[in-house]
């Protein structure tokens, strides 16, 4: 028998085997070796799930804990707000001019021009900052701390604040311009860093539409570093 004949016979035999197998599998469901595949898929899914959960935990923990500054950076002292002495000068200003509540805005601008002119005579202006009522109220709450809301921090009793910074000439002080500024109309009071470095917002000087004597200003426990300095001078019109 030739190889070709043998191959034809092998084909017939293979057909018989196929038919026999189909007949046997018709009676019973075909079983596929899927067990290991399913197990591996479960394992892969479990590993992926654990990875996702782990990543979420790591990210959550990272977000929850504030990042510490690098060790190499210079140590910095951070004072939380409303802790310790707070001053109207802690923004770096040298001169604080409080304008009467209710004064017209053009009056405030006039005072600003006069103050800038006066300070320019004894030094070089570096910053002139005008705080309108809203900002001045926020400043009053910040300086006066808790309870400020019930101690007169209202639009009608909050002075407008004018902050000025300058580099003074040798021998000059902000006290030199203080009397001039106090003579300006609608100026409530004028503080300098030297005389009122730490002080409350002078709400007490003008409350409920009435002027309050300067002497009623409550001294702070943590007052100026130089206790011998005179108290802030009240304005002539205040």
């Amino acid at each position, binding site marked *: *028998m030739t*190889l*070709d004949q*043998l*191959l*034809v*016979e*092998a*084909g*017939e*035999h*293979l*057909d*018989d*085997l*196929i038919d*026999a*197998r*189909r007949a046997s*599998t018709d009676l019973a469901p*075909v079983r*596929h*070796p899927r067990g*290991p*595949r399913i197990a591996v898929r479960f394992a892969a899914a479990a590993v992926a799930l654990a990875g996702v959960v782990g990543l979420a935990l790591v990210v959550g923990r990272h977000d929850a804990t504030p990042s510490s500054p690098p060790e190499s950076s210079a140590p910095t002292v951070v004072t939380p707000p409303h802790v310790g002495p707070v001053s109207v000068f802690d923004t770096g200003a040298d001169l604080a001019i409080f304008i009467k509540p209710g004064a017209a805005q053009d009056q405030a601008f006039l005072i600003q021009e006069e103050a800038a002119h006066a300070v320019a005579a004894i030094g070089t202006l570096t910053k002139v900052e005008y705080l309108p009522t809203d900002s001045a109220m926020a400043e009053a709450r910040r300086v006066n701390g808790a309870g400020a809301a019930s101690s007169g921090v209202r639009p009608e009793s909050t002075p407008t604040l004018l902050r000025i910074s300058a580099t003074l000439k040798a021998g000059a002080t902000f006290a030199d311009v203080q009397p001039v500024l106090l003579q300006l109309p609608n100026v409530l009071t004028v503080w300098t860093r030297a005389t009122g470095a730490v002080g409350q917002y002078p709400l007490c000087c003008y409350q409920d539409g009435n002027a309050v004597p300067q002497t009623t200003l409550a001294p702070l426990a943590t007052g100026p570093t130089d206790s011998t300095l005179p108290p802030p001078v009240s304005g002539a019109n205040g």
Partner: protein
Amino acid sequence: MIADDLTEPRRAPKDFDAFVADGARRVRRALVAFYGLEIGGDAADEAIAVAWEKWAVVGLTDDPAAYVFRIGQSKARPHLRWRARRTLFSDTGAPSANVDVPAAVDLLRAIERLRPQQRTAVILVKSYGYSHREVAALLGVSESVVNNLVHRGVSTLRTLLEVRS
């Protein structure tokens, strides 16, 4: 059975029943030749089931048998991973009518040693009488490649059988 396959002109099936009568048998034989009785048979069952489910698409292809053969290959591939020892055809000595079973089993054992594509080409062309063109369409190769596969496969079989005898 074989004579019918050899003499009847094959045409593109018009409907699924026509495919089952003609193309499905070709696909089953090819998959069994490629992967063996067990894996190839299961893959053929699954592929034909997919073809029935998606016949609206499969029926539009130029050669649905070749398309379903590809499906069968995809179905068979995962099974191969978990079979350390693949048994193809040689583990059964079931009786067959008008066939010298020992000689056929002996030949099938030799065929198992051929490469899958070579084995499939030899079985489809030499045992079942399919044309080179049909086998080329099924395997996705050119007719000359099929010719080479058959020629080299038969040569290898000759060598194997001579050594064995």
